[in-house]
């Protein structure tokens, strides 16, 4: 073994280099205040190691980026921890560099001959920010997509070349595949490599200046073992902090580690409204909000650029004690400013109802897409966004709000749901269910705003029939009405009533006859082979998927209201010319499935 070492040593001289490092003098002796550079090195190593393993899973394209991160987070054993350690050690790295820079400034260790040491440390800080900005996008979830898009769009503020810079950063006129490949290359290739070079450079420069300081006299001790011990303890502390942060949401379940939102949606009209930058940029974000829109270039580029320039000039400003105090004061003001602005932003968002609602919607979609991704059908090749776009539970409320809620409510018994802009048509919550029909056929309720109260049918034949014929029923008649309601509701084949419909098939059969001869519905309505079309909606297959698509598509069709239609628009009037319709067949299907409660549940 010894011979092997000697063989290597003879040809490489590496043990001499190692000895040189270990014996390099620490001026003033081993100190706790000297642990920062090593802690920065350690955090970066954690980043490199965890980053490499994340890279082995990551697939950079608009249809696979989120999906591969989802796979790491929720399917790979320990994947959530890998992601969390990578994420939190990046935050810790930034803090460590910040603390180190503050220490250099406050202790006047940026002046000659340490200018280069200081500048390299500042550059490390800037590249850490660059690594955070590029790494943030890679998850391709709602927040990282929207926040990055806002940031990259700031480039267009630069006169003349802004538009071109945006395209270069995004890899094209809009965000997509090439944005991910570029950001990935910058993140794991360029910025990481530059950071590593800066780290090495910083180490060499630091050794040189420390050796010079030690040679100039005063107390000094070799790095090994006293300073090395302190560094090792500091690194352990860093690791413990990272692990505590990573484990703050528990060790299992959907929320362990770092949150992954719903997949990014490239449709600009679905822009994630709760997008916020990461904590390190929150102060700058709030600062930029202090300026009117026309002057955005000032807080986004000019002021930060100026601040960085001042920091780079600190070694020259700080040549005199007065200059040094200026530097210290400047740093204190900036830090206090950033912290105060960050808290202001947080307080602002907490009090902002729209922001909280948008956040809650984002959480809901993230939760939903997890459910859908876990469904037996899994994530399709077109990406997880397809799951949400084809999900009635997600799209139904959006479509309802856009197309139906100007007149219709969708509110449950507690008043929860979607309220109409101006309620002027029946409440469609649980439409077609026994409970909904019981209300419709209740003399006291049919003319309430929940049903026909705000429509012209308030004075129509149906309301008159319910008031006159279904009033003062005796117990037996009430039971018969229940049977008729069960029969009509069974036409809808609602999933929520599947069991009860199957159990009460004989009552339903009785009810079906009663709809015809006892209650006389078929006097106006058609019901299977009884009655005529043309005077009232067809009750055959009432509230079934097909029936609902028909009535929403064209309520003035003679199968439904015909000429009696109130104000309900036709959403798919032209079956042969789909381009002319308000809603596509797919949208109609999603809306109907949602109204009928037909969606995937775990």
């Amino acid at each position, binding site marked *: 073994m010894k011979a092997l070492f000697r063989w290597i040593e003879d040809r490489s001289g590496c043990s001499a280099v190692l000895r040189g490092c270990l014996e390099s003098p620490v001026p003033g002796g081993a100190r706790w205040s000297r642990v920062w550079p090593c802690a920065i090195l350690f955090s970066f190593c954690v980043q490199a190691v965890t980053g490499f393993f994340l890279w082995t899973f990551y697939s950079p394209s*608009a*249809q696979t980026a989120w999906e591969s991160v989802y796979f790491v987070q929720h399917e790979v054993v320990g994947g959530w921890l890998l992601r969390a350690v990578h994420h939190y050690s990046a935050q810790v790295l930034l803090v460590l560099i910040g603390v180190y820079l503050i220490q250099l400034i406050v202790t006047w260790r940026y002046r000659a001959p340490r200018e280069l040491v200081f500048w390299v440390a500042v550059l490390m800080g800037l590249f850490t920010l660059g690594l955070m900005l590029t790494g943030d996008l890679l998850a391709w979830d709602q927040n990282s997509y*929207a926040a990055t*898009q*806002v940031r990259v*769009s*700031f480039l*267009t*503020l630069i006169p003349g070349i*802004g*538009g*071109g810079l945006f*395209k*270069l950063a*995004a*890899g*094209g*006129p*809009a965000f*997509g*595949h*090439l944005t991910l490949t570029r950001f990935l290359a910058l993140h794991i290739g360029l910025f990481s490599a530059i950071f590593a070079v800066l780290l090495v450079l910083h180490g060499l420069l630091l050794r040189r200046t420390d050796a010079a300081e030690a040679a100039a006299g005063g107390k000094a001790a070799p790095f090994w073992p006293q300073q090395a011990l302190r560094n090792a303890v500091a690194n352990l502390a860093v690791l413990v902090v990272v692990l505590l942060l990573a484990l703050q949401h528990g060790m299992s379940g959907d929320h362990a580690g770092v949150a992954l939102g719903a997949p990014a949606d*490239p*449709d*600009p*009209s*679905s*822009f994630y*409204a*709760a*997008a916020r930058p990461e904590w390190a940029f929150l102060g700058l974000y709030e600062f930029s*909000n202090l300026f*009117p*829109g*026309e002057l*955005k270039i000032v807080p986004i580029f000019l002021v930060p650029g100026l601040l960085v320039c001042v920091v780079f000039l600190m070694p020259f400003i700080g040549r005199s004690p007065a200059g040094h105090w200026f530097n210290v004061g400047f740093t204190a003001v900036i830090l206090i400013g950033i912290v105060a602005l960050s808290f202001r932003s947080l307080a602002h968002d907490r009090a*902002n109802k*729209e*922001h909280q*609602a*948008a956040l809650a919607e984002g959480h809901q979609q993230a939760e939903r897409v997890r459910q859908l991704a876990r469904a037996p059908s899994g994530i399709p090749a077109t990406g997880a966004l397809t799951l949400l776009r084809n999900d009635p539970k997600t799209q139904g409320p959006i479509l309802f709000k*856009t197309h139906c809620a*100007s007149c219709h409510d969708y509110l449950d018994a507690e008043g929860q749901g979607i309220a109409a*802009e*101006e309620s002027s048509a029946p409440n469609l919550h649980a439409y077609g269910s026994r409970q909904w029909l019981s209300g419709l056929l209740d003399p006291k309720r049919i003319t309430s705003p929940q049903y026909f109260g705000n429509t012209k049918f308030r004075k129509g034949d149906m309301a008159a029939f319910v008031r006159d014929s279904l009033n003062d029923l005796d117990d037996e008649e009430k039971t018969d009405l229940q049977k008729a309601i069960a029969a009509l509701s069974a036409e809808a084949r609602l999933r929520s009533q599947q069991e009860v419909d199957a159990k009460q098939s004989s009552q339903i059969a009785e009810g079906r006859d009663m709809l015809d001869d006892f209650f006389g519905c078929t006097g106006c309505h058609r019901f299977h082979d009884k009655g005529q079309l043309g005077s009232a909606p067809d009750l055959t297959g009432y509230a079934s998927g097909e029936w609902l698509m028909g009535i929403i598509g064209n309520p003035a069709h003679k199968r439904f209201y015909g000429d009696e239609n109130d104000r309900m*628009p036709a959403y798919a009037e032209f079956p042969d010319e789909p*381009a*002319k319709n*308000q809603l*596509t067949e797919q949208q109609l299907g999603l809306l109907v499935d949602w109204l009928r409660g037909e969606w995937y549940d775990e």
Partner: protein
Amino acid sequence: METPSPTPPQDNSAGPAAAEQRRGFLAQAISLVLGTVTLLVPAVVGIVSFLNPLRQHGQAGRFMRLTSLDVLPEDGTPRKFPVIADRTDAWNRFPNEPIGAVFLRRVKPDKVEALQVVCPHAGCSIQYEATDDGGKFFCPCHSASFDLSGKRLDETSPSPRDLDTLDVKVESDGEVLVKFQSFETGTAKKVVKA
């Protein structure tokens, strides 16, 4: 890369030494040029490809049928219409995808105004809010608000300009066509995304 080594000072400027120095200078110059050129070639090749996005252009605005006139409320309440078109992302083409949305509003019985839903501030999607005095547009991201014609309502708005209007054509058969375009966000001037 070769670094030029300092030439030791010489006492005599005799012939062979001077010739040696000249040759040394030539060697240094050539090695520097060669080193630079050999490094530049792959870098330039890479940078040319890297700049390719500059030659890519977004969707050119063209008139698209969004709806028909009778769908738009006569009282001037705006309605939001998604814009469906083919979308290209590098090597993929996605047919019939939502690529944005437009608010349409009837200002006269046969005149329609169209507004991009994208807020000029940071690119969020504006929402319509019914109010007592006829309604307004509102951005949920940074609370910018606009009147129904798209004018900014706040004294100091986060938005650098009013909402972006789009060209509208109403055909004789009542079809509403809109020239769908996207604009740069954050700028005070309305610049079409090229």
